[in-house]
């Protein structure tokens, strides 16, 4: 039904089927709900900012270098993901795969650094139950990390489907939607970088 419509070849594949168009719009609505979800976690973290009880303070444990590496990896992966969609719109399947696999590798690198960071904190005596501050920290950063994990798995499965079925209006809409998700994870990370790490370091310094 939907793909029987006539389109000029300039319309990107992902917009050619009605299902694709509606799914993309629907996903934007979902992202609005994700913003609300993360805002509650930011509120919790900021409200509990000084409730470190007898545990370590963020000033003692936060390490700028690791955070910057994570930020750079995720920001770059968002860029390469954008290039992948650019290649998809040029109907370049190989380009799409190349840039998406680079994106996933950068995402995995980000996750690796984050897990290393968490393990380090736990070793230094800051775990989920150490204080209200660390509960808030691990829940917000952990929820984001969980999203990145799901993003990697999801995009991998979609790439497998594209490899099997080719670039169709159906598969390209899925690729486009998963790219929106990936960019969104970088948007959330910008605020984690600012509100969790930078704000944490500024307020506990002064």
């Amino acid at each position, binding site marked *: 039904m939907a793909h029987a419509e006539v389109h000029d070849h*300039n*319309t*990107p594949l992902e*917009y050619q089927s009605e299902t*694709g*168009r509606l799914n*993309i*719009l629907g996903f*934007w*609505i979902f*992202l*609005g*709900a994700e*913003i*609300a979800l*993360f*805002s*509650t976690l*930011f*509120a*919790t973290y*900021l*409200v509990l900012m*000084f*409730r*470190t*009880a*007898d545990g370590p303070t963020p000033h003692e444990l936060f390490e*700028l270098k690791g955070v*910057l590496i994570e*930020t750079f990896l995720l*920001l*770059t992966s*968002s*860029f390469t*993901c*954008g*290039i992948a969609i*650019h290649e998809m*719109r*040029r109907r370049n399947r190989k380009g799409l795969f190349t840039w998406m696999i680079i994106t996933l590798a950068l995402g995995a690198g980000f996750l690796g650094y984050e897990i290393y960071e968490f393990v380090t904190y736990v070793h230094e005596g800051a775990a989920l139950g150490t*204080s*209200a501050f660390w509960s808030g920290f691990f829940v917000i950063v952990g929820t984001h990390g969980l999203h990145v994990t799901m993003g990697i798995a999801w995009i991998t499965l979609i790439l497998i489907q594209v490899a099997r079925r080719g670039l169709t209006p159906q598969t390209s809409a899925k690729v486009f939607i998963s*790219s*929106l998700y990936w*960019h*969104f994870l*970088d*948007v959330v990370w*910008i*605020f984690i*970088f*600012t*509100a969790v790490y*930078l*704000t944490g*370091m*500024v*307020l506990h310094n*002064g």
Partner: protein
Amino acid sequence: MANPQDSLSREHGGIPWKHVIGYLLSIILTALALWVTFETGFSTRTILIIIFIFAFLQAALQLLMFMHMTESSEKKSKLTGQTQTGNILFAAFIAIVIVAGSVWVMSAGHAEHDHHKMDSKTHDMKMDGDMKMDHGDHK
């Protein structure tokens, strides 16, 4: 807002300048936020205001340059682009109300209590007990 078809057809060019510029600006904004936080010696309040403005700018870059938020799926209508943009702006409004509202409510409560604590040294034990319940884990 640009004509939706413009932004779609421009995507067919060779080098994705929109993405390259968005990426470079993101890196610059991140570096500036770091510089403001650790090198300028501004007051805490000024630092926080500036780095949050940078964060919102960078989020806007992602949404506009990478995610094509304003782009419409229909040829002759801007409706989907406008719906997407309106939805994200509304969600951002909700997020700001939740975060700023929570922080304000909780810190305003603190000020009340701290003030109370100072001139309540001679008050009865019941008041003291109440405060311990509220602030037992506050260090």
